[in-house]
């Protein structure tokens, strides 16, 4: 097979498609992390540990800064859902099925403050981590290099679907992401309890 640049092209397409959904989440005390645009109307998913005590600042790809509202947070799954007053955003979709070991994955984030960085790996293992409540939390382990600043960013598959939320850096070479199914459930639960936004009057 002659790839003739097509391989580079499809990776570029993937990066162009995912990048608009990557944001910076800046807490007030600690360094910045990453976040994922979860719907077009301003829902941002990130790690709980990225969000400080007060409402964080979310910075979009167009450099617009937003004071974010914290909708909910859960230290046991290390996830937090934020909302910003923005519309027409480009969200990422969670992968409909869990990933396979060996599948290629790409992590988007801002490791060591280096903005909009993409690192590549494969799914190394599908395991569960135990949280403080003793519950088993499905996580995706990968050989993708991650560093502080990747936290809260997406781990996507070759189709650009979210397979995990990058969370913990265990040692040097074992990267852990919270499974997309956990993230989906977390967002569903959070938005169910939320008052539905009332549509504006017909004018």
């Amino acid at each position, binding site marked *: 097979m002659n790839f003739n640049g097509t*391989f580079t092209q499809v990776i570029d397409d993937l990066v162009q498609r995912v990048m608009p959904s990557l944001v910076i989440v800046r807490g007030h005390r600690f360094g910045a992390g990453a976040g994922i645009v979860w719907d077009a109307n301003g829902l941002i998913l990130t790690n709980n540990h990225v969000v400080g005590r007060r409402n964080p600042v979310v910075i979009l790809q167009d450099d617009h800064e937003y004071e974010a509202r914290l909708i909910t947070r859960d230290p046991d799954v290390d996830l937090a859902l934020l909302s910003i007053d923005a519309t027409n955003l480009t969200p990422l979709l969670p992968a409909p099925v869990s990933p396979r070991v060996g599948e*290629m994955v790409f992590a988007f984030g801002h490791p060591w403050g280096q903005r909009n960085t993409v690192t590549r790996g494969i*799914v190394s293992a599908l395991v569960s981590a135990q949280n403080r409540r003793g519950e088993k939390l499905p996580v995706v382990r990968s050989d993708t290099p991650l560093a502080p600043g990747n936290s809260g960013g997406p781990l996507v598959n070759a189709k650009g679907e979210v397979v995990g939320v990058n969370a913990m850096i265990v040692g040097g070479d074992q990267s852990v992401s919270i499974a997309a199914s956990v993230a989906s459930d977390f967002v569903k639960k959070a938005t169910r309890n939320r008052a539905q936004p009332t549509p504006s009057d017909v004018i």
Partner: protein
Amino acid sequence: MSKNVLVELSEALADAAEKAGKATVLVNARRRMPASGIIYAADLILTADHVVEREQGIKVILPDGSEASGKVAGRDAGSDLAVLKLERVAATVAEATKSPARLGQIALALGRPTPDGIEASLGTVSAIGGPIRTGRGGMLERYIRTDSISYPGFSGGPLVAADGTVLGLNTSGLANGAAVTVPADIAWRIADALVKHGRIKRGYLGIRSQTVEIPEASQKALKRDQATGLLVVGVENDSPASQGGLMVGDILVAVAGATVPHHDELFARLNGEVAGKSAPIDILRGGQPQTLNVLIGEK
């Protein structure tokens, strides 16, 4: 979304991991964390020798999650390989590659360090080298190095090509803890010998030697270009060498038909089938070629 080359590659890698994963087992034969193994024949597991720290109570967890006990059928510290015999038949036998590893090709390191499932990391073949002395009294004719991550418990597991065939067996026990891969053809050959004999025979001569230049006149007398040979500087009493007539001052140029310009070649030649057999040894004595027949010992 339509498929593109990236999606296809990604799926191919997952397919390769799944295929080879069906022949990758967990080997629990040490106190620390378990290691991995390859189903090499229906009831035989090929693994790394250094992860088999006990010969009693060896447990193997098969890809379907079931447990089987195993016994050591043969082991060789020199190549860090061991074969375990299972009490029953395992499901899928690993397929060794027919095309040897090439520099730059992508490869998956697989392991099953936990009962939870297969684990993998991706790399490329970054070096193919050898022969090297393994530091455990052995000699590996060829080895593969990759830049994949060797996670804890990966020793004994396969290095897998993109088509799911096995390129070799990964181990951290041969090169001071660094991960290297024993190529599949060598690993399978040693495994065959281990199944047959339980161990690897190593030939023994009983000499000390050092590399020396062969003068041009002697090379002409030998009728070949061989710049160096092995000067015998010591012969042990009652050794195969002394019984065969080798003397201090002889220069070894070939053993059993293979030239020995350095120690590594002699070492490689003495591995395997020559042990216990009579073999011709070409020497230079006083600058003149001679051939001695030596009954090579076994160690």
